[in-house]
C-alpha cells in the first residue's frame, strides 16, 4: 500500500499544491468557521499518509472488512457482442457495501479516530457512500448522521433502509432540488455547527482541500491493483481505461497510477441525462462554466448569473452540478478525455450487461459501460479496454423495474 519514495517525486504527485490547487482549480472556499478544521484535517492526513502504521491498518481493513483486492474480470460475452477490443471489468462492485465508496469511508474513519472525533457526518446521493459510511461507523463505534436528498431517498429506498439498519441517522433534505448537491449543503451546515467533535466524511473527490486529494489517495488502490492484475494477465498495460464521473472519485482513483503511462488512454463518462439541454443533464464539461461551489473552484453547471443549475440523471450518484477539480485540470492538460451517456443508453446497457455477463451494474457504473460498448467496436481485437465497474446495481433494480414498466420514465420525473 505504501508508495515507494522515488515515485513521490513524479510531477503528478506534486498536485495539488500546498493550498489544494490543481492548476487553476481546487483550493479552499469555505466559511471561516471551517478553516481551522480543514487545516487540522490536512495536517492529520499528511501525518497519517506518511505513517506506515496507518497504511498497514488501512490495508488490513481493506482486505478483511472491505474484501480487497477486487477481481479483474474478462467480460467474454460482452467482448464478443461488441466484436472489437477485449473488455475487462475491474470489480469494485464486489466490495463490501457494494461500491468503491468503502475505500474512502474506511480511510477517513480511521483518520477521524486518530483525530479523536466522536461523530461522523456524510452526504449521499445514490446512498452507496452513505451505506459505506454507516458500515464503518458501526464497525468503529462512531455516532453517524447521513444527509440525503428527499428525491434520492425515494429512488434509493433500499439504501436508506440499509443505513438505518446499521445504526445511522438518515436525514431527509428538503431544500433545493432535493438531491446530492443539497445534501452536501446540509452536511456542511451540520459541520459548521458541530465542527469541534465531528468529522465530515465527504464521499467524492470534491469540496475544499484536502478532500479531493485525500479521497483520491484512498481510491488509488483501485488503479494500483488494476495495473498489477492486467500485467499478470495480459503482460501489458491496457489501451484505454473508462470510468464514470460523478464527483470523480472512482475515476481518479482508477486513473491516477496510469497518468504517466502515455500509451493508456483515460476516459471519464459523465451523465448526459435526457440530453444536453439546460437542467436535463449533469455533464459539467458539456455546458458547464468555471465557478466555485461547495469549497472548490471547478466546472459547474450554472446560469448566466452564477446561480447553480438544476441537474438530472437517472443515476442519483452522478446527478451533481460540479466535477472534482483534479478532473478539470487533467482535461485542460488533455490527459483525460470525457464523454457522456444518456439515461436511455444507460437503461439499455444496464440490461445488456446483466444478460450477457451475469453482473448487474450500478446505474452510475453503467455510464462507463455505455461508452465502452461503443468504443470497443472502434478498437482492434488485440486491444484492451478496462471498465471500472464502480458499484453493483442491486440498489437500482426497483427503480429500473418501475421505469421499464413505464411507471416512471426517465423523461417524466
Amino acid at each position, binding site marked *: 500500500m505504501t508508495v515507494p519514495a522515488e515515485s513521490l517525486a513524479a510531477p503528478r504527485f506534486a498536485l495539488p499544491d500546498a*493550498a489544494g490547487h490543481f492548476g487553476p482549480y481546487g*483550493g*479552499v*472556499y*469555505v*466559511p*471561516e*468557521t*471551517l*478553516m*481551522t*478544521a480543514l487545516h487540522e484535517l490536512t495536517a492529520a492526513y499528511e501525518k497519517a499518509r506518511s505513517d506506515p502504521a496507518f497504511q498497514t491498518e488501512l490495508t488490513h481493513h481493506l482486505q478483511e472488512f472491505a474484501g480487497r483486492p477486487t477481481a479483474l474480470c474478462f467480460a467474454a460475452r460482452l467482448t464478443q457482442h461488441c466484436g472489437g477490443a477485449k473488455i475487462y471489468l475491474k470489480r469494485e462492485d464486489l466490495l463490501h457495501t457494494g461500491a468503491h465508496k468503502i475505500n474512502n469511508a474506511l480511510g477517513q474513519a480511521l483518520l477521524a479516530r486518530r483525530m479523536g472525533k466522536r461523530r461522523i457526518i456524510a452526504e449521499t446521493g445514490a446512498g452507496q457512500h452513505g451505506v459505506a459510511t454507516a458500515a464503518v461507523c458501526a464497525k468503529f463505534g462512531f455516532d453517524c448522521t447521513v444527509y440525503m436528498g428527499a428525491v434520492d431517498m425515494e429512488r434509493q429506498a433500499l439504501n436508506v433502509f440499509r443505513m438505518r439498519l446499521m445504526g445511522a441517522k438518515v436525514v431527509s433534505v428538503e*431544500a*433545493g432540488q432535493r438531491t446530492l*448537491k*443539497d445534501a*452536501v*449543503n446540509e452536511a*456542511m*451546515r451540520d459541520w*459548521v*455547527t*458541530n*465542527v*469541534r467533535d465531528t468529522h465530515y466524511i465527504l464521499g467524492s473527490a470534491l469540496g475544499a482541500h484536502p478532500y479531493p486529494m485525500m479521497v483520491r489517495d484512498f481510491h488509488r488502490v483501485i488503479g494500483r491493483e488494476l495495473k498489477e492484475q492486467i500485467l499478470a494477465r495480459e503482460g501489458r498495460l491496457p489501451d484505454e481505461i473508462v470510468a464514470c464521473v460523478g464527483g470523480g472519485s472512482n475515476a481518479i482513483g482508477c486513473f491516477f497510477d496510469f497518468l504517466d503511462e502515455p500509451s493508456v488512454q483515460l476516459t471519464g463518462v459523465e451523465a448526459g441525462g435526457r440530453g444536453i439541454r439546460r437542467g436535463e443533464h449533469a455533464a459539467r464539461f458539456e455546458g458547464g*462554466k*468555471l*465557478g*466555485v*461551489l*461547495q*469549497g472548490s*473552484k471547478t466546472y*459547474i453547471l*450554472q446560469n*448566466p*448569473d*452564477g*446561480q*447553480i443549475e438544476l441537474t438530472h440523471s437517472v443515476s442519483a450518484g452522478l446527478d451533481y452540478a460540479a466535477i472534482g477539480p483534479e478532473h478539470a485540470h487533467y482535461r485542460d492538460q488533455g490527459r483525460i478525455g470525457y464523454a457522456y451517456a444518456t439515461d436511455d443508453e444507460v437503461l439499455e446497457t444496464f440490461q445488456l450487461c446483466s444478460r450477457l455477463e451475469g453482473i448487474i451494474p450500478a446505474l452510475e457504473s453503467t455510464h462507463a459501460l455505455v461508452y465502452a460498448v461503443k468504443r470497443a467496436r472502434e478498437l482492434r481485437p488485440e486491444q484492451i479496454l478496462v471498465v471500472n465497474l464502480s458499484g453493483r446495481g442491486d440498489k437500482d433494480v426497483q427503480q429500473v423495474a418501475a421505469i421499464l414498466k413505464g411507471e416512471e420514465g426517465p423523461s417524466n420525473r
Partner: protein
Amino acid sequence: MDRIAAAFARARHENRAAFVAYLTAGDPDFDTSLAACRAVLAGGADLLELGVPFSDPLADGPTNQLAAQRALEGGMTAARTGELVRRLRETSDAPIVFYTYYNLVFSNGVENYVRAAKAAGADGLLTLDLPPEEAGELLAACTQHDLKTVFIVAPTTPDSRLPLLCAAATGFVYYVSREGVTGVRDQVAADIPAAVARIRAHTELPVVVGFGLSTPAQVREVARAADGVVVGSALVNVVAAQLADRAGLPGRLQAATAALAAGVRP
C-alpha cells in the same frame, strides 16, 4: 470619509454601537424588498447588509435559505440587485454592504462584479465562502474600485489567523458569535467581550458582532462589547410572517427594527 467609516464614527460620536440590519435583496419581490429596506433604515439601522440571494447558501440556516429562495423565485437577478441599490440611493445615504457567496462574484468576472456593485451605490462586500487565502483577485478589484471588504472571524479562528483576516478587511471585521449557520438563537454567547478584544489587538477597524441575535436585550448586551450589532434572521422572520400582507410589511418591519435598535441607544 466613506459611508461605512462615517456611520461607525457617527455612532461612536453618540457613544453607542452601530445597528446593522440584514435583509435578503428581492425578498419576497422587488417592490416589497425596496420598501422593506427603506423601512429598516427608517427604523434606525445605521448600516444595511443586503443578502444577494444564491441558490446554494451553505452558511445560512433555514430562515435565510427560504428568503433567498423567495427572492430567486420572485425574479431577483444580479442586475435587479444593482437596481435595488440604485433605488435605495435615491432616498438614503446609509452604507450598504453586500453579503453573498463567491460564485456570484466570480462567475462573470470578479472585477466586473466589483465595478458594478460600486457603480450601483454599494459600499462594501462580504463573501461568506471566500477566505483571505483565495481572495487576492477580489482584494485587488476592491482596492481598484474602492469597495470596502468585510471578513468574518469565527469562534474557531485561532489568533494566528487574525493578522491575515484583519489585513484583508478594509470596511469592518465581523465576529460571528457562534459556530453554525445563520438563524435565531435563544442565548448570547458568553465570551464576546474577550473575542472582540482579541480582534481589536489586530485592527483599528470597527468590529461588529452577529449571528442569532433576536431581542433588544441581546442587542444591548452585545452593544456593550462591540462597535456594531448585526440582526438578520429576526428581521427576515418579520418578512416571512407578512407574505400574505406585503403592504403591511414596511410598518411592521420599521417597528421591529426600532425596538431592536433601541438596544444600541443608551
